[in-house]
């Protein structure tokens, strides 16, 4: 048993699960439900208490997932980075890699809008239109992020069964 490979795989799977679950939870549950209570005070308090932690949580789990994923590609028997984009396995892994990179940047964008919304609510300087714009962007980016991580997990999980 290759202990290094096993530990890397466990870290990859657990960090990936955090990333996927958090993205889905934020996009499908927390945000729509928090928005349905029309209270700027609740929104401000929630953002103050969770936004930095969310960013840290998502960024760390995403970074750990991608780094360990790259290590796994290079450590997988009979496969290497030169296989990316070639054959069934390489194509699925490449799609997963692109989707996860895109999700990483999309969640970074969502983090930037969250920070703007939090600052806008705290300072009271942002207009209602600006705040509505930040909220709209956050909702869209949240859904895009959730879809991208689902695509990434789906392609990675089925890569070894891909024909070609």
């Amino acid at each position: 048993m290759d202990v290094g490979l096993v530990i890397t795989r466990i870290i990859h799977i657990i960090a990936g699960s955090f990333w996927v679950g958090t993205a889905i939870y934020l996009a499908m549950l927390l945000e729509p439900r928090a928005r349905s209570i029309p209270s700027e005070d609740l929104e401000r308090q929630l953002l103050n208490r969770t936004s930095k932690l969310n960013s840290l949580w998502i960024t760390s789990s995403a970074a750990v997932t991608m780094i360990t994923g790259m290590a796994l590609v290079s450590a997988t028997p009979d496969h290497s980075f030169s296989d990316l984009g070639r054959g069934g396995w390489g194509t699925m892994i490449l799609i997963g890699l692109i989707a996860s990179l895109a999700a990483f940047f999309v969640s970074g964008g969502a983090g930037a809008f969250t920070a703007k919304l939090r600052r806008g609510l705290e300072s009271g300087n942002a207009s209602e239109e600006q705040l509505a714009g930040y909220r709209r962007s956050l909702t869209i980016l949240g859904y895009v992020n959730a879809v991208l991580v689902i695509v990434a997990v789906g392609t990675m999980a089925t890569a070894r069964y891909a024909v070609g």
Partner: protein
Amino acid sequence: MDAEIAILRLLHILPGATWVGSAVFLAFVVQPALAKTGPPHAPALMANMLKPLMIVLHGSAIMTIVFGIIMAFRVQDPLFDFLWSTDWGTMIWLGFLFSVVAYGIGNIAGLSNKKMADIGKSLTGPPSPEQAAEMTKLRDRAILLARVGAIGVVIAVACMALANHV
């Protein structure tokens, strides 16, 4: 066979990731944040979020467990011979045990949250000292149980991920 296993794997892994990530995020980020926010907003949000949260957590947990069992029967035949006599089997039943226990603990946490939300919903003004104390007790119990459940599913994932390597 390959296509069938690939689909089963997808139906096991996607809900599994949703279950694990949501449980950990709820237990270690959302619930502590709501506890600090306190009434009147936190119980209102929890009451508003409880139903879809339960649908997501129950749905993903049940799908993960059911498709995991189907997949185990498809990849090892006869499964029960492998389950008790191989290291792979030991890791699989340990993972199954942890996931079922974690699911049960998560359900008890959900019930505590529901009781707290019901008290929150019934309030017409600020809570009485007795109601506030009861809500605090239920909230703390829900946070503790949610954390134990979340750790349980993480251990279940680790067992399952280890199974192919032992």
